[in-house]
């Protein structure tokens, strides 16, 4: 017995090699069921710490993949939410417009704003209604809050609307309380004003409406409120600066008022005057 132990100690490398090789061969020679039993026994005893560590690694890997999947899902949900919010806002606007259309005394044609003028001054917009919908040149265009502009060009399905912001635009307006009439102008695309006599009692906060005298806009439509009064170059007049009701930058819908210009009846006569040699 001592001899055997001494042999093992002296030739421990060879002995260990032999034992491990024999063990390996024994495991290989076993049937599948036997191998599975040995595997399970080893995993639950000797290799349990390693098994636990590797399972933690796979858990971490799963967490990473789950995190990635959840990020993608969150992004998709956020897009959905944004779309739904947009729909809800549009729904609210349209509900308001339906009510507006019913209460407004003129025949109006609702149209979506398709394109804004790319210039910073934002002088015009394109709306999605044209000749086929009965739109003609010089028809007034209003937004939900007030006057927006007038149609200057008509194509079969779209129209170009000149906004009040256009420096070339002139609109006849009236201060609601004093009934003072003036011409609304805009020189720089931001500041709107009309001239009033210095003795006219006009104050900040007074409402300005269309006068109906210009021939394009019907009277009584809201334009804005007086923001400030300042002296004009002409000492007989003051300038009443107006803050418009309509926010042109955020205009998404518009109404074309189906109203022919009041001066259209005289057009033929004017044209005939031109033809006279």
């Amino acid at each position, binding site marked *: 017995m001592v001899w055997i132990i001494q042999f093992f100690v002296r030739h*421990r*490398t060879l002995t*260990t*090699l032999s034992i*491990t*090789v024999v*063990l*390996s*061969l*024994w*495991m*290989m020679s*076993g049937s599948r069921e036997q*191998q599975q039993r*040995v*595997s399970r026994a*080893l*995993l639950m005893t000797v*290799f349990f710490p*390693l098994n636990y*560590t*590797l399972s933690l*690694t*796979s858990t971490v*890997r799963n967490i990473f993949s789950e995190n990635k999947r959840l990020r993608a899902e969150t992004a998709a949900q956020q897009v959905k939410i944004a779309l739904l919010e947009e729909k809800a806002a549009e729904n609210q606007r349209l509900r308001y417009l339906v009510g507006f259309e019913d209460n407004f005394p003129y025949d109006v044609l609702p149209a979506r704003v398709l394109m804004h003028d790319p210039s910073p001054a934002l002088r015009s917009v394109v709306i999605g209604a044209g000749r086929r919908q009965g739109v003609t040149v010089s028809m007034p265009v209003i937004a939900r809050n007030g006057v927006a502009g007038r149609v200057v060009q008509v194509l079969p399905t779209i129209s170009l609307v000149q906004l009040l912001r256009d420096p070339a635009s002139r609109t006849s307006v009236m201060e609601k309380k004093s009934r003072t009439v003036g011409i609304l102008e805009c020189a720089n695309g931001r500041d709107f004003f009309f001239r009033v006599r210095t003795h006219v009692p006009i104050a900040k906060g007074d409402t300005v409406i269309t006068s109906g005298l210009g021939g394009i806009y019907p009277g009584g439509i809201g334009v804005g409120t007086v923001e400030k009064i300042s002296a004009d170059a002409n000492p007989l007049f003051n300038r009443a600066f107006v803050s418009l009701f309509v926010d042109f930058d955020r205009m998404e819908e518009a109404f074309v008022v189906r109203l022919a210009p009041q001066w259209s009846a005289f057009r033929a006569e004017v044209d005939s005057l031109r033809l006279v040699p």
Partner: protein
Amino acid sequence: MMREVAVWILVFVLALALQGSVVPAVAIAGITPDVPLIALFFFAVRMGCLPGILAGFLLGLCQDLYSPSLLGQNAFACTLCGWFAGMFNDRVMRTDPLLKGVILAAAFFLRDILVGISSTAAGEGSLTATAGDLLFRTLPRSVYSLALVSCFFIWAMYFKPSRRK
């Protein structure tokens, strides 16, 4: 001594974890380096034959347990690889890095030959397939592994802060 053993155990666990997680992501044409075998090689070269045999057996057994291969197949191959690498123990003979690379490549071939033979013996393969695998899988894998080890050697020789001092 105990500290060194603990460090090596950690290295083996890390090598197995890397082989199962990160290494497949750096595969080139389906060829991956064999990180556990590299770790076993350096362990055996540093510690000798007996620790190499024991570490090889346990490491191979781990691989058998976590792969659908024949139980004992990798244990058998890695045991002999550990013994083979342990014969070039640093305490017995000093070998330069180039020779170490050749021995590592030989270890790769030895392991795959033993796995092929055991598969053939178990009726799950053939010697012809083993020969093909040696050419098309073992050779590229050993080259890839040697490239990785070379990078580590270059870093250790020239860029390691303690070396530069």
